């Protein structure tokens, strides 16, 4: 439980820091940036400020839960290591991933629909088929897909093996609604020539 809590609370700090940095990069791009310091300040605020007897981070955790390992990896890179994010255009691929992800997981979860009588989300509790498919896709797309995505998926599967999140379902380590929304926003908002790298802060501390 305590590992789950640490993961969930630190993930909330990362989300808020990323949103703050994104807002600053979009609206006040010329202000100086100190990524590590921002993470520390936001984390201190969210973990120490208390409302109704619990921290702000715990309120956020109740609101939208714990993000996937993939999301945390992207946020971590965006905040502290922006150069690791892919520079190539990602618009089309991102939209495909977001659309397929939504269709597979979120439409059935909202509407009660199933695919051929099966709930795809439930496959994630005994995920050998998903793991096999991901491994095969990684090998097949090794030269096409940015290595950072394969690395993120590997981290997610490692975290699943360690049960780093509360969930026993592999899908929750790979994807979450926030990631899908974020991918769609990035695909539509950023110029195709810049992809996700568009949102990088102008002055990273690293």
């Amino acid at each position, binding site marked *: 439980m305590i590992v789950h809590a640490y993961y969930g609370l630190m993930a909330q700090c990362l989300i808020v820091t990323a949103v703050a940095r994104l807002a600053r990069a979009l609206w006040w791009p010329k202000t100086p940036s100190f990524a590590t310091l921002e993470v520390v300040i936001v984390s201190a605020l969210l973990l120490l400020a208390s409302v109704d007897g619990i921290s702000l981070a715990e309120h956020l*955790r*109740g609101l939208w839960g714990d993000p996937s390992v993939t999301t945390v990896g992207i946020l971590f890179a965006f905040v502290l290591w922006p150069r690791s994010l892919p520079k190539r255009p990602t618009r089309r691929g991102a939209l495909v991933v977001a659309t397929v992800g939504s269709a597979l997981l979120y439409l059935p979860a909202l509407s009660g629909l199933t695919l051929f*009588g099966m709930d795809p*989300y439930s496959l994630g509790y005994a995920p050998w088929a998903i793991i096999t498919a991901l491994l095969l896709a990684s090998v097949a797309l090794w030269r096409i897909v940015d290595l950072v995505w394969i690395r993120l998926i590997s981290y997610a599967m490692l975290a699943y093996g360690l049960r780093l999140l509360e969930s026993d379902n592999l899908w929750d380590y790979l994807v979450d609604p926030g990631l899908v929304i974020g991918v769609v926003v990035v695909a539509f908002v950023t110029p195709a020539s810049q992809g996700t790298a568009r949102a990088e802060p102008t002055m990273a501390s690293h």
Partner: protein
Amino acid sequence: MLPAVKHDAQTITAVVHRSVELPTPTASAHASSIAVLPDGSLRVAWFGGAKEGAADVGIWIAAIGADGAVGDHWLALSRGDLQRRLHRVIRILGNPVVWCDPNGVLRMWVVSVSYGGWSGSAISALDSGDGGRTWDHARRLVLSPMFNLSTLVRAQPVPLSGGATGLPAYHELGKKWGLWVRLDGSGHVCAMERLGMAAGNWLQPSVAPLDESHALALLRCATAEVGAIGSATTSDGGGMWNSGGPIGIPNPDSGLAVITLHDGSLLLAANPSKVGRARLQLFRSRDRGATWTPSRTVAQQDGAEYSYPCLVESPDGVIHLSYTRMRRGISLVSFTSAWLDEVAAP
């Protein structure tokens, strides 16, 4: 796989019937659940507070001796307790389900809401090694990819082979459907299946095992045009559930409970009317749920509410039924199969 249903060669012939009203420490009480401990005593849990959904609602537990005597009662879990243990905000508590596993550990699953109403619920699990006095190992069951929203519990779990547990659950946001959640010996989710149902909204499944591979789930109906208890069946130990259609007993969008008795018959507690919860009645099936015969009426009064039954059978063959009384208290009725057999119909 489902456990083999034990059919005792010796059926208890003594007519036993006793009824008690449990203590009412709060203005409102609802949604009780019964656990039978290894020593034969009971723990009855319910949620109580100023009113349903209020911030002061907690999970209360009453101890009932093996002789039926009502012992003490205590606040087992408050909203603040759970949010400290889960490290996330909790605004509402409800629907506790308690059950004693084969190792003597008392397990509780409880519905909690962080933001919004009941349809924004998630299920949390806790364990107790001291009969429900203290609770540990609080954890969240993640059963939905949409922010883990809208999964709830209400009915008793079913022990499965290999130390696993089958937990009936349901989804309530928008369309409503039943779920069958398989938990391993340490309480982790290892499978989840939807209960295939006829058109309409169905929730709060209660599951009765029929043999090692077959089981019957009965569900509350939330579609007024249907207005009858729904059913689903499995023939592969819970791997897949198919619609069995409505069973012909009216249901006013009200909770129900069904169990398999030691003699192999099924016992159902429900509100058999299209509107209102003024009558709580028992029904019996001796043909694996194909037909149901009305049995005793447990409580009835015009304009009253007797609802949300919970049924369990002790190893000694005594059947225990708890239910909500007027949303103000919990009643517990204990009886034997012989008491049911005294009447063919009310």
